[in-house]
């Protein structure tokens, strides 16, 4: 029984566009990972609590509403509080470069914007999980 990469895909906030999140979840599944999907409208607290109970290696957050700075940062802070910066933390959405820098400084390991391929994300996870901070 080999270790499978476990990933939590989460939609924090009120954004209801989950096409990207669902497509990525399916792509990760097809790459042999076990993917927990949270569904819509989650608070950062719920996301982190689920990630810890599920003992995931990776958290992928998606928001297209422009609320990413506040919501994503809060997830990073909560992981810091729980001393779980070993979890690979990724974000996706319409995220300008300036915000990307802010989020990377807060502890994100990767930010993916429109046009990123599923393959790139799979590869990124395979190469970087477990090596975070």
């Amino acid at each position, binding site marked *: *029984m*080999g*270790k*499978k990469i*476990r990933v939590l895909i989460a939609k924090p906030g009120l954004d209801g566009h989950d096409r990207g999140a669902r497509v990525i*979840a*399916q792509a*990760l*599944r*097809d*790459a*042999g*990972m*076990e*993917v*927990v*999907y*949270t*569904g819509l409208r*989650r608070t950062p*607290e*719920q996301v982190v*609590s*689920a990630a*810890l*109970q*599920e*003992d995931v290696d990776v958290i992928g957050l998606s928001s297209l509403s422009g609320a990413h700075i506040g919501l994503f940062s809060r997830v990073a802070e909560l992981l810091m509080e*729980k001393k*779980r910066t070993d979890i690979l933390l990724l974000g996706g959405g319409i995220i300008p470069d300036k915000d990307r820098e802010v989020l990377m400084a807060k502890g994100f390991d990767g930010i993916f914007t429109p046009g990123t391929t599923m393959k790139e994300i799979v590869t990124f996870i395979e190469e970087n999980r477990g090596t975070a901070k």
Partner: protein
Amino acid sequence: MNKPDLLAQGIQAGDEQALARGLSVVENREEGWEALLERLYPESRRGFVLGVTGPPGGGKSTLVKRLVEEFRKEGVTVGVLAVDPTSPFSGGALLGDRTRMMDLAGKEGVFIRSMASRGALGGLNPGINDAVLLMEAFGSEVVIIETVGVGQAEIAITEVADMVVVVLVPGQGDEVQALKGGLLEIADLFVINKSDRGGAEELEIHLQWAVAGHEARLGRRPPIVKTAAIKGEGLGELCAGLREHRQRAAETALDEERSRRRADLALRAHLEERIGAAFLTPLLAAEEWHEAIERIARREISPGKSARRLLRKNFPDVWRCTRED
């Protein structure tokens, strides 16, 4: 202290993160998994293990969520193992049951864990037994295992349970199929969920007939409860049904029977796993395995004969025991 001891101590102290990690350790058979189980086994209390299964689309996750809320009202701590099928193509899995239970996340006294069925040989995730044990050690008084009841493998998982609730919904047209598939045999209680939909009465009558027809054979007559989990209707009756079953089980030695069955299953799972690891796994990686496959594929040798040859060569003692003559 070494890692298994630390984890065990954390789990027994009610540390969520220790339980989360421990579940991964036993599920992945990571280093120290056996030590962890050994350390926890003698000290863990026996919890009430409730299996919830049924065809897809029955609203099982919502029902489980409502049940958890009911248990919590009474101060009972609950662990949930939500099992989803592993993709036979990629080995990955989409674990979606948690979606319905997200507002339970972070609530005190509730621990939810999604598991993939990962059925390599035969379908049963051998980790499920051990996961239950860990949750019991953590202090969960009730452990709910939620599975999709579509095949034998999923049904087998509920054999771990002290009680099995089968969830059906009206109008899906597959309930008859589901009963034929073995759900009738394992049910201790039927739930007709989404009973506010048309067709609930017909399904109830159909079920009553099926249950009555099998009463003599099964030696019991599982009750039928109607719910509408989204609206929270029928939960009182369902909880009463669970209580009754527990009481009767305690009075009639059904409990002991179930404990023995669970022990039997656990022992078998561990044995099969070890036999597999000791005999099969090295063979699967060997050159002669691939050669045999090539030859069978070319129809140069039958699979049975090939298996006998492999046995004779690698495990002559076993071969001698299984010889037909």
